[in-house]
């Protein structure tokens, strides 16, 4: 039983070699939110990187203690606006556990369908900006945003908002599926599966993308487990861990789907894994549309939560989000702690950008799908 020295790159030495130069990447970012990475370069090679985050820190956890449980939902789903249902669901699960409310089966299926649609939307967003624009490929930006708009239209039909749904309250979803929704969604999924083939042809099999991303930023399996990364980054390094299979919530226990993993752990496998997950999401939505039962969608939940604490987690598109909610017999939570995917993946960034060219840094940063607003909360 031993303690271990820190992994290389995690702790930055305060003194620098005379031949190095400190370059500040950021804080104004043209693609993602604001964060600053202070890299130390020696010629064209990066020696170390120091993430300086907090430029979008809005104090979500402190605000959450000043508003009641339902009023907290809008501002707790803003950190990752492209994937709002998962942030909403992860917050609502521990409250339902504290209050002893069980969501009826139809409500669970509706939440699952909305969550998987959101996963596809978030992966398309990541594909367009973090993987496309950061590697200079603007065609995939146009194509992915065009297809994403079709999913957003369906989400608007279901919830009434384009991106910020506030769809799940303690007790279940707020609205049932409108007439014609299932039909439109099936036709959209047929169209989308054909589009995925074209994405493969133009981006994932593109020789210049492969040349830029293959073999860059390799995260081995043991390092991934030690650093505690989550989500597609973890699965691209060979660890088969997905909260939907480990601790099923919603309707996932009744649905059949695979968890894709890759062994290489480089940036290209991190690109590919989101592509495979989109295919699995299409499969899940199709099954859920067939199997959805009839009945009520939600139960009425009280406005106060009893004293106690509960921990709930969901698998969002960027990784596992764990929420801790502590109640104190009033209508406001006494503590809400959010442990989300981007903040937990941040530790992989200084670890991976050692001894790479400066031009490889945007590729590694984009393949980690690090979203500063989610990490800063």
């Amino acid at each position: 039983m031993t303690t271990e020295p820190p992994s290389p790159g995690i702790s930055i030495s305060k003194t620098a070699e005379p031949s190095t130069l400190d370059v500040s990447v950021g804080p104004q970012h043209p693609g993602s939110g604001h964060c600053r990475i202070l890299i130390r370069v020696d010629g064209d090679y990066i020696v170390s990187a120091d993430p300086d985050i907090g430029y979008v820190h809005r104090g979500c956890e402190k605000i959450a203690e000043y508003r009641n449980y339902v009023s907290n939902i809008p501002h707790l789903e803003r950190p990752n606006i492209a994937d709002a249902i998962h942030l909403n669901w992860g917050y609502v699960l521990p409250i339902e556990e504290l209050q002893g409310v069980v969501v009826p089966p139809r409500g669970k299926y509706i939440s699952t369908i909305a969550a998987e649609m959101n996963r596809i939307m978030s992966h398309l967003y990541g594909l367009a900006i973090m993987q496309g624009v950061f590697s200079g490929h603007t065609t995939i930006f146009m194509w992915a945003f065009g297809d994403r708009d079709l999913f957003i239209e369906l989400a608007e039909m279901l919830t009434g908002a384009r991106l910020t749904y506030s769809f799940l309250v303690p007790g279940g979803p707020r609205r049932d599926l409108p007439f014609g929704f299932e039909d439109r969604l099936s036709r959209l999924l047929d169209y989308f599966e054909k589009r995925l083939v074209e994405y493969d042809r133009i981006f994932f099999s593109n020789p210049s993308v492969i040349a830029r991303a293959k073999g860059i930023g390799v995260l081995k399996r043991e390092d991934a487990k030690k650093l505690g990364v989550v989500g597609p980054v973890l699965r691209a390094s060979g660890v088969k861990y997905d909260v939907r299979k480990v601790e099923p919530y919603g309707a996932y226990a009744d649905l059949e789907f695979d968890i894709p993993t890759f062994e290489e752990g480089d940036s290209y496998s991190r690109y590919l894994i989101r592509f495979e997950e989109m295919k699995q999401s299409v499969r899940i939505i199709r099954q859920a549309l067939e199997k959805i039962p009839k009945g009520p969608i939600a139960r009425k939940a009280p406005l106060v939560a009893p004293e106690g604490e509960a921990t709930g987690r969901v698998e969002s598109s960027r990784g596992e989000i764990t929420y801790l909610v502590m109640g104190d017999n009033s209508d406001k939570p006494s503590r809400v702690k959010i442990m989300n995917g981007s903040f937990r993946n941040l530790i992989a960034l200084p670890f991976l950008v050692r001894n790479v060219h400066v031009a490889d840094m945007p590729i590694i940063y984009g393949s980690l799908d690090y979203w500063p607003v989610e990490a800063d909360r």
Partner: protein
Amino acid sequence: MSQVSLSREEAIIGQLKARFPEAIEETKIDRARRVTIHFEKDHVQEIAMFMRDELGFDHVKGVAGVDLPTQKKIEVLYFAGSYSNAEVQDFIVILKAQLPRDNPIIASVVSVWESAHFHERETFEMFGVKFEGHPDLRKLLTLDNWEGPPPMLKDIKFPEMGQR
């Protein structure tokens, strides 16, 4: 209501209590797959090493601080999880230590669980908890020249916020 067997949870508690009889203060099984353990703060590194090497909990999902002003304590929570051990892969073990509110100091677990690196920095900044042995304990999220108090403490009320 069917009785869910809690044998795995009790096995973990049993092993910890056998190894650290004097350091474990209180244990609780909230529900299946959630175990809460209150321990004495001076043994944090030994307990972390035991959990990593013997029980297979190889990472922390987060390190949280909770302010308890009425008891004059700050609680530090470690959410331990496991990727390697298939038997406890679905567990979250919450380790809690209570620190005195006016001088919260605890040893850092970064040398055991490297995944706690940025979480400990954030808890230091938001609650004022000093983690001894952390290689790089400095501010993470607030303003560059923030001279003010740790923001998440309950008696710190900023003028923009109303009454709670």
